[in-house]
């Protein structure tokens, strides 16, 4: 029973990893760029939401902060990422890594090294007990938001012409180009959505974690693990992987607490050993 509680709690945590990892995965799948600066957008989302909350309250902050960061994402794609789609991958790694460091120091200069305080809105404080399970009210809210975002992204990718081009672009960018479709505007949208989701994660996690300059670096590692386990180019791969990572961590902490943080890396190791492509990763020509 207690174990089941950890499993359910792990699923909620997985949902939060998902917000960050899905954008990371999309940007890599379409553009072939590993965005090491993804965590910086998560941090910016958190800082922006703390600032906006001061004036407008938590609700508007949770909407405005991701939108603002998504706009920043457009600039990021237009002026930086775009130069590296067809370049040596090491260059984009270096640039985004450098950008992550610049962003962290910029935050330190603007807001200082001391963490900012952020609180859960009063109406979502406390927990609800369903049967024998204890749920944090606020985490249930996060779960609902994640589910809604997930549904939105899935519909966008699978039920619209935009999504068809993006999916085709992941598999055969040369064919898409041959059909006379420029992938660049699509990429702008993908980056905007991706970093917007990261910022949404930051905005919602600010009240229950600490808002500090290095928070982006903390989250990026787990997000990578999720993407690698899930496999590139697969929407459901990332979803399943995020939930798995959350649950495995919870179960490990239940039985062997000391191994809790190591468990997700062991999981990644095992998955890569058996399926180097990731759980549901497709064979993508440009990466082979």
């Amino acid at each position, binding site marked *: 029973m207690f174990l089941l509680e*950890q499993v359910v709690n792990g699923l909620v945590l997985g949902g939060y990893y998902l917000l960050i990892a899905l954008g990371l995965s999309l940007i890599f799948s379409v553009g072939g760029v590993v965005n090491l600066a993804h965590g910086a957008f998560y941090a910016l989302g958190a800082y922006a939401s703390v600032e906006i909350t001061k004036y407008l309250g938590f609700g508007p902050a949770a909407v405005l902060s991701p939108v603002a960061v998504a706009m920043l994402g457009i600039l990021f794609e237009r002026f930086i990422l775009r130069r590296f789609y067809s370049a040596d991958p090491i260059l984009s790694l270096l640039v985004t890594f450098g950008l992550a460091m610049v962003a962290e120091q910029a935050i330190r200069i603007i807001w200082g090294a001391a963490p900012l*305080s*952020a609180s859960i809105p009063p109406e979502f404080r406390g927990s609800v007990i369903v049967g024998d399970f204890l749920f944090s009210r606020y985490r249930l809210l996060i779960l609902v938001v994640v589910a809604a975002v997930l549904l939105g992204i899935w519909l966008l990718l699978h039920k619209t012409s935009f999504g068809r081009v993006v999916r085709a672009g992941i598999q055969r960018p040369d064919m898409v180009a041959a059909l006379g479709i420029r992938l660049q505007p699509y990429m702008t949208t993908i980056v905007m959505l991706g970093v917007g989701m990261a910022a949404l994660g930051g905005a919602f996690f600010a009240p229950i*974690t600490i808002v500090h300059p290095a928070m982006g670096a*903390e*989250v990026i590692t787990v997000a990578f693990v999720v993407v690698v386990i899930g496999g590139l180019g697969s929407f459901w791969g990332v979803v399943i992987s995020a939930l798995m990572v959350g649950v495995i961590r919870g179960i490990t902490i239940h039985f062997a607490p000391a191994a*809790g*943080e190591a468990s997700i890396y062991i999981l990644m190791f095992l998955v890569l050993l058996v399926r180097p492509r990731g759980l549901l990763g497709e064979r993508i020509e440009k990466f082979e």
Partner: protein
Amino acid sequence: MTRFSRRTLLKAGAGFASTSAIGFPALVHAQTEKIKIGHLTPLTGFLGALGAYAQLGIRMAEEEINRSGGVMGRQIDVLSEDSVNPATAATKAQRMLDQDGVAVLMGEINSASALTIMQVAERNKRLFMQIGARSDALRGKNCNRFTFHVDIPNTVMVNAVGKALLRDHMVKDKKFFTLTADYIFGHDLLNAAKRFFNANQGNLIGDELIATDVTDFSPYLLKIRQAKPDIVCSNLAGNQVTTLIKQYAEFGLPYPIVGFNLNTADAWAAGEGNLAGTWPTVWYHTLDVPASKTFVANFIKKHGKPPENHAWIEYISLKMMAQAMNETKSTDTDKLIAYFEKEAEFDILKARKAHFRSWDHQLMQEAYPFTVKPKGEAKDKWDLITLGAAVPDANEPLEILAPTKEQNPCTL
């Protein structure tokens, strides 16, 4: 390959010559050179926010000392750097001694980094004033002749809170569940806590070791709920305490939470309504001592926010070092050690003066338990806590909370 024209070469040569001409007189006047102090503190990672305050504090002392004529008529120059991690801390400390020519080493908050710098100090036979790390082991089994410790050790923090808990009948026959930071500091704090529980009939029914990069405590909170303790107790460090406090409030578990370590920057970051319980501190900006109030007012005027306990402790540490150098008229390691070991008294902006205990080099000073102000009573966002009376009581010796000779394996 570019070839230099003769003219360029000439110009470069002239430039070189003039620099060495400017550089040379400095060597002649070495007597009036600045006294360099090597300062290391974590500016990144889970203790980074505390390190930022540490820098502000030591800089303020540096300015005040220099404005009033320096030390032995010489200006002091604090070289302050991010210590990053234990290995880097040791490398930087060695470099500061070898290349930068610092007279003494000061600083640190992280117990693991402090330990490696202590080893560098001992190897080089140079003084290290270890300011902010609290692990008992540093002034216990790892103590050395070249290191002096300013902040209160874990045992004192446990005893400071312990006194308040005993008064509130929250120890005897109570079930405790602890969450402990998984590095030298946490292990050490847990040992001190265990000794306290054993001595006062408290039962430790569960302990979880938490890696320092954990940001989500929910699985641990569920385990606490299953264990049904009477009191939850935090042995965490740095901003992890903040995260725990926030998520503990989020889950709304009914058990009271106390802790044996909390720095005020981390308390401020928790936000109103999240912090609860009884905690220890070494200093707080609302302390009702005139000298302390002057320091706070000056700090606020300069930085627009009140000083955190690490700002205070770095400030008084550099002042103590300056006093020692002025009194001994020297920066010589042996003379400074002898001065501190004489148990010379220092004004540290508290009601009672402090001194370094000669046999373990630990600064004997007052500490304070504190509780959290009820919602709505805080004057501003910094005014979160109600400071308890100083411990030990005014009529007790300062040493009463510190480990005794029997408890402390230190031999210098």
